[in-house]
C-alpha cells in the first residue's frame, strides 16, 4: 500500500495523525478517501492541495498515478508571484 504523509497544517482534521497507508491508485481516489475519513477536511481540500508522488509534484491532476510502493506527500497548493 502507498504511504501517505500529510503536512502538519492538516493535523487539526485528523486528531494529530499525519501518516497512514492507502490503497488509492490515483490522486482522485486519495482525495475521496481523505474526504471520507476526515469529512471536516473537505473545506480545506476544496481550497486546493498539491501532491508529491515519489518526488514529482502535481497541483490539480486527479489522474496522477499512485503505485502501491509510492510515497505521497499532501502539501499546500503551490502558488507563486
Amino acid at each position, binding site marked *: 500500500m502507498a504511504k501517505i504523509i500529510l503536512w502538519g497544517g492538516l493535523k*487539526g482534521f485528523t486528531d494529530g495523525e499525519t501518516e497512514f497507508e492507502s490503497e488509492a491508485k490515483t490522486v482522485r481516489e486519495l482525495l475521496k478517501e481523505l474526504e471520507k475519513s476526515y469529512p471536516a477536511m473537505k473545506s480545506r481540500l476544496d481550497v486546493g492541495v498539491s501532491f508529491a508522488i515519489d518526488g514529482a509534484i*502535481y497541483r490539480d491532476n486527479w489522474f496522477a498515478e499512485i503505485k502501491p510502493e509510492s510515497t505521497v*506527500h499532501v502539501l499546500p497548493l503551490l*502558488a*507563486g*508571484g
Partner: protein
Amino acid sequence: MSSNDRFESREFKVVGTRPLRPDGLDKVTGKAQFGADVTAPGMLHGAILRSPHAHAIIKKIDTKQAEKLEGVHAVVTRTDFAKDVDNTDVLDNCMAGEKALYDGHAVAAVAATSPSVARKAMKLIKVTYKVLPAVTDVDMAMGADAPILHDGMQTEGLEKKSRKPTNIAQRHEFGHGDVDAGFKQADLIVERSFTTEATHQGYIEPHACLANLGRDGRGELWCCTQGHYYVRELCADLLGLDESQLRVTASEIGGGFGGKTTVFIEPVALALARKSGRPVKIVMSRNEVFRASGPTSSSSIDVKIGVKNDGTITAAFADLRYQGGAYPGSPVEFGAMSAFACYNLENVKTIGWDVVANRPKQAAYRAPGAPMAAFAIESVVDEIAGKLRMDPIDLRLKNAAAAGTKASFGPVYSDIGLIRTLEAAKNHPHYSAPLGPNQGRGIACGFWFNFGGQTSVSLTVNADGTVGVAVGTPDIGGSRASISQMVAEELGIEYSQVRALIADTATLGFNDVTDGSRVTFATGLAAIEAARNAAKIMCERAAKTWGIPSDAVVWEDGHAKPVSSNAGDFEPLSLKDIAASAANTGGPIAGHYEINADGAGVSFSTHIADVEMDPETGRAEIKRYTVFQDAGKAIHPSYVEGQFQGGAVQGIGWALNEEYIYNKDGQLQNAGFLDYRIPVASDLPMIDAVILEVPNPGHPYGVRGVGETSIVPPLATVANAISAAAGVRMTSIPMSPPKVLEALDSVLIAEAAE
C-alpha cells in the same frame, strides 16, 4: 521514469540566441498601451473613498449629497455587489462590509464626468465610524490581549481547538526525523531571532482599468494584470455575472512581480459601470497603491541549528510568524516549506503561523514567503560557518541538497542544480577578489518551487508563411520573445517570422495566472506542442500533395520531407510552400494545445555580495554582486539574466531600505516613493549573472522557471555581508542606516566594556 519526463537532448538554432524583444519598440516610443492608456466614448472617471482608520466599525454611509452633485453618475458601496460569493475575503478587501480593517480600505466609490468632480463627490460622502484599537505588528497580533479583527476566526491546524477569538488563522508544520535527538548530537547550536518588514513589489505602473458593463450582465474589462482569466473569475463572482459574458483583455503591464495576481479596483469599476450605464476608468494613485494594494508579509522568525564540529548539520528548527494583512493567506506555508529546502537534513522541523493584522491584504511577491525564511536560515548558517572557522560555501556544500535528498518539506528531489551554483560561486573570481576597508562579503542560497498550471496555446500558419501564436499568459518578463523562439525552433523558421500575442479571455481557452515562474515552462511547453501539431498537419498536406501516406513524411528544418528514399523522391516542401497552398490542400493550418502542466522542476540559486559600510552614517553600499542560478535551459539568455538581476535588485532594496512604516494608530506613514525608497540604477553596480543549465526533465527543452528564485537569497546575502563588515550579526530587515549605526554602536559599547 516519471510521466512528466519530456526532455529530449538536441542542438538548438534559435533557442539560446538573444533576438530583440517584439514589444521593445512600442515601449520605448510610447506606443504600447498600458492599463491607463485606453479611453471609451462617454467614459466616466471612478474614484474610491478609503478608510482613514486602521480598524473601525462602519456604522453608516450617507451618499445622498454626493449623488446630487452635478457630474456624478453613480455611487457604489458594498450593497452594490453580489451577496452570496465564493471569494468573500476578496470582495471584502475590494469594498469593506461591516468593518474597515486597515488604513486605506475601500468603503465607497464614485463615477463622475471628471476626476475632479469624482474627488469632490467623495468629500460629500459621510461615513460614520466607530474606531477600534488596531494592531499591525505580527507578534503583537498573536498576543492574548491583541485587538481581534475577525470575531469568528479560529486557528486551523491545531490538534486541540480553542474557542477563544484569535488573529492566528492557520498553523502549518513540516519536517521529518527527530529534531530533539538531532540537537543532542550537535557540538554547536546557534539560535537567533529575526524580523523582516513588509515591502511592496514596487511596480512602476499603478493598477488601472476600464470597465463597461450593461444591465444585461454583458461586459468588457481592460486592465493591467498578470492573469486576466482569474480577473474574469473573481469579477464574475463578485458582481454576480456569468463568466462567458465578461470579456477581459490584459493591457501591456508595467511590472507585476506577483502584485497583479488578484483584483482591487476592477470589480469596483464594473459595479460603477453597471450602475451608471457608462464606461468607467479607475487609475490608482501611488498613495493608493501603497495603502490599498497588496504588499508582502512582515515576519518574525526564530531559528535553531545544530552542527557537528565537522560542519554536518544534525538538526534544524524554525518557527515562522507572518502577518498577511487583514485576511488569512500569508505565504507562511511557503516560508516554512522552503526554509531548509537547500539542505540535506536528517532532522528538521518548521512551524508556520498565518496571522492577520490591520494592514492591507498581502499579495504574492516573487517567491512569496521564501526570502524572509532564507534571510533567517542563511544568516544562522553563516554564523555557524564563522564559529566553526569554515568557508561558508564549504559548509553549505557539506550539507547541500542533491538528487535523492529528502526535502525538508517532504518529497525526494530528482536532478537539481544547487551544488552546481555553489561550486560555480566558489570558483568565480568574485569570491576570491580582495575586499577594501569597511567592506564585507556575504553569500547565501535560495530555493523556489516553480509550477506549471493550466495553459492553452493556439497557433496559426498564415498564407504568407508567417506564424501567429496566441497565448493567455500576460508577458511580464519577455515571454513573447521566448515563446516565439521556441515556436521558431520547433517549426524550423526564423524568429522574425513568428509573432506571439496575448489573447483575451473570449478568444482562447483558460490560462492560469502568470505567476509561479511558470510561463516559459508551461506556455513554452504548450507552444512547442502546438507547433508540433501544426507540423503534423503540414506533413499530412505534403503527403496528400505527393500522394504518399502521411506517416511517410517527417518535419525537419522547416520542411516536410519524405521519411526516406523508399517513400519516394520528392523535393522537400517548406512551411511557406505548404502555407501558400493551404486553401487547395484542406484549408487553414493551425495547431493548438491545452495542458495542466506538471513537472516544472524546483530551482536553486547562490548569490555573492560585497558591501561597503560608511561607519559615520551607517549607509551600506553594494560594491559587487553576482548571481548563480540554474535555468534548466536559457531560451533567451538576456531575459534570464534580466530575471536574475531584477530579483537581486528587489531583494537588495528589501534588505537595505524598503519598509512599511505605521504610526501607533495603524496609519501608513510613507505611502510614496520619496519616503519608501526602492533602489535605482545609480544606487547599484552591474549585477553579474551566471546562468547554469541543468536540464529540467519535465520540459522538452529542459526549461526551469527563473523569475522568482533570484529574490530569495539577497536578504541573507546582504545581511551576511554587512554582518561581516560590521562585526555584528544583523537580525532585522531593512538594514537601514540607523539600524546599522545602532549595530556598530553596540560593538563599540561591547569593546569598551571589555
